[in-house]
């Protein structure tokens, strides 16, 4: 499911936009903000895969800092309060756009996000991931795991992201419970 964060000050636009987004079966949770206040914190814990933001709000918030905060692969659509010139980029939605053109632009981005997701999404852990999980569950840091397995910390982090996505478990203690339940480590190993 695609998680979408909508940041738009107009109530009417928010309503209309969520109405359109809900028609896409790929769309999961939609979180809505009416201003730039608290946007960085929301991005941090909500981790959207699509951000739809009004350009006037984007200007108010620190745009560079905002882009850094966005999760990898998060796409951005901009809502523009004026009519768009011919040949405007596909990631701009004008409030004057027709239904057809809105749906088309949104479809393109949703399609590309879900295609990306499908490539990533095989649910079983690979043997490599199981090995990483074992070390995580034993309480080792990314650095320690990297040293033990002769790989870079970056590789460990990307394995960990995949493990969390596949299992839907984020915390180390949650991963530990999973590892014990599945015989990857023993209960005695962690005391």
């Amino acid at each position: 499911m695609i998680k979408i964060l909508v940041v738009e000050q107009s109530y009417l636009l928010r309503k209309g936009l969520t109405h359109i987004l809900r028609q896409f079966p790929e769309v999961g949770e939609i979180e809505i903000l009416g201003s730039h206040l608290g946007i960085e914190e929301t991005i941090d814990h909500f981790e959207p895969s699509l951000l739809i933001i009004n350009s006037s709000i984007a200007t108010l918030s620190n745009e560079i800092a905002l882009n850094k905060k966005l999760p990898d692969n998060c796409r951005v659509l901009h809502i523009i309060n004026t009519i768009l010139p011919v040949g405007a980029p596909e990631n701009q939605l004008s409030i004057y756009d027709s239904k057809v053109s809105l749906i088309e632009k949104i479809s393109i981005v949703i399609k590309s996000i879900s295609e990306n997701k499908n490539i990533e999404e095989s649910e079983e852990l690979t043997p490599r991931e199981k090995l990483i999980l074992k070390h995580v569950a034993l309480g080792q840091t990314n650095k320690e795991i990297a040293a033990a397995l002769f790989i870079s910390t970056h590789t460990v982090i990307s394995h960990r992201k995949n493990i969390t996505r596949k299992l839907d478990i984020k915390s180390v203690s949650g991963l530990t419970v999973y590892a014990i339940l599945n015989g990857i480590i023993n209960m005695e190993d962690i005391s």
Partner: protein
Amino acid sequence: MRIHANMKIADLVHFNFEVLAVIQRLQIPFAFKDKTILTICQENNIDAEFFLQLVQWFNERENFPQEQLIKGQAQWLVNYLHHTHQCYLNYQIPRIEKEIEDLEQLSDLPDKSAQLMLNFFREYIAEFTAHIEDEENTTFPYVLALSNTIAGKMDKETFYIRYKNYSIDRYLDHHSDLEEKVFDLQNILLKHLPPPSNSCQFTNLLLEINRLGNDLKDHTLLEENVLIPKVRQMEKELISRT
């Protein structure tokens, strides 16, 4: 539904029972009779505007009244968050803990798995309690003192001496993600544990965990998107007056 101050509070509850949470957290007594929202708020010294914004939000989830809540008084927000904490600590969390304890009696769960869940949840309770105590003992008094100073009820020098090195960003530094582990537990039970035969008890546990998780999300929203921006504004205001 358009909620207004002159509608009966009992009608409001009938329309959506979820608003009982707001009523409880603002410490509004039951036995509503035919009283309107406005009367009840006046009787209990509650800011009717604040009450309306919260229940409106409960009825229309996609329209979080962020700006209006930021404009409201800090003391109401703190009061609401405080009673929400009490509800978690004294009721919701112990209940879930008890239900996980009861899982042990389900004979068909794999060995020690109930104990494992219980350990996980108790570790979470310890973190959760520490987080809440920090807010109750440090953050909330700071916010109230700041608000009193701006209102002229507290001397500015006294405030700056007392909170020389504190600002709301210090609080953010260790503002951990409270709902994360709740949803982890939910997913472990839902996706990774072999199914137990007494599914009634198990389902109920899942429902309660899910409810707590969603409630914590609301709580985070109020803290991160209302309380923190509001306090930042107040901090700036006080500095600009110096």
